């Protein structure tokens, strides 16, 4: 049986957080406190170019594409996971 969508979502959130923690480019204090509410630019202290690299690493790790047009709408790790996860079928 397939795990429920909520379980899949939580699992993806955990994998994204683990991957960000493993990147090595994130300040150690920020890496210790990652949560769905972590603000990517402010809390991870990324400049505009570093954000683009950050997104590219996630795209490759999670085998997806995140159009540049969508990046402006991504503030937190929760927003990021929403963009990465496969679209839920309409209920």
């Amino acid at each position, binding site marked *: 049986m397939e795990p429920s969508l909520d379980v899949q979502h939580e699992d993806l959130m955990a994998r994204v957080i683990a991957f960000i923690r493993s990147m090595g480019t994130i300040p150690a204090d920020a890496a210790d406190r990652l949560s769905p509410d972590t603000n990517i630019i402010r809390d991870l202290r990324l400049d*505009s170019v570093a954000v683009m690299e950050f997104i590219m690493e996630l795209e*490759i790790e999670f085998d*997806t594409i*995140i159009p540049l047009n969508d990046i402006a709408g991504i503030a937190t790790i929760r927003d990021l996971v929403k963009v990465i996860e496969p679209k839920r079928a309409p209920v």
Partner: protein
Amino acid sequence: MLLKYQHLRDAYEHVRADGGDPFNVTFDSVVSPTEARLGGRKVMLLGTNNYLGLTFDPSCKAQAAAALQAEGTGTTGSRVANGTYSGHVELERQLARFLGRREAMVFTTGYQANVGILPVLAGRGDHLLLDADSHASIYDGARFSEASVTRFRHNDPNDLKRRLKHLAELPGQKLVVVEGVYSMLGDTAPLAEIVAIKREMGAYLLVDEAHSLGVLGKNGRGLAEQAGIEADVDFVIGTFSKSLGGIGGFCASDMADFELLRLVSRPYMFTASLPPATIAGVSRALELVAAKPELRADLWRNASSLYHGLAAAGLPVGPTVSPIVSVQVQDPQIAVLMWNRLLELGLYVNLALPPATPSGRALLRTSVSAAHSIGEIDFALDTIIATGVEFGLVNEARHLTAAQ
């Protein structure tokens, strides 16, 4: 109003604290393709993208001067109003013939060529795929476009293919954008592999030959000519401000109805056209690209000497021999100090600092010209290596061994 830029002031002052201002160099005069006066002193130019040295070619200057005398200083109007003279149309035909294309469209700058073409090729519902190290004009063109934009890892055909696979089921055209030679490290795009993917996945391909026109290929048509895949390039972008020694840009294509883009490209329509003198000088320069292959031979002799000389001394240069030879410096502060020292010693190069550089490294970027003499290249080598030794980038013993 400008408070939002306060952080830049601190960084800028930091860079300027070591002497010169790398972002506001003002030459007293430029006296040849390879020499200028700066602060009352002679400096050798090794960072001007003047690949063929044509800015001072007597025939280019004469043709430009004649057009200036005959047709005045400017056109005072857009191409779609009063700014199209016979010279503009003839240059477009000449470019199309040179590149073996049906049609070419001239823009007032190279920047405008990308900003003017990308949004009209890829619109709402389409997909732009940009190499991550693309020039700012490509990124800005993508921002003007209503297409969905994705960047693939620099020179990585597998990442490009992966992205095209994700887009395969989606409606809309896919346009892949790469450059012939990348401006920071001088590396070239793996065009044969990109073309194979483009064909397989049904995408279009645009190649910006800004740094490769007149530089690569037997006839100087750029990387696509050198790679033997010109028929697979749907759109060629180029500039007049590098190998052709003027200013302006173009897009050329075989596509039917290409001329309709003149009616929809706002950066083409809403800017004044190039002045007659520029058109005339560029037209002559394009003739010389075809007529004088020895210019390319001289350029590559110089590029090879500089690249191999710096590499042999142990300086970290780019991945391949190219007219763009960049020394990578880990510490931006050291790069600023080295840039100042080179200028003191009479050598002008470009300083490129993160975030405008690949992988966040600082670069002392040089560009070689066909007009540099062997003696000038030797001077540049000695000066850069001595500065590398002084600032600890080069192990002195290794340098001496290499010199022997």
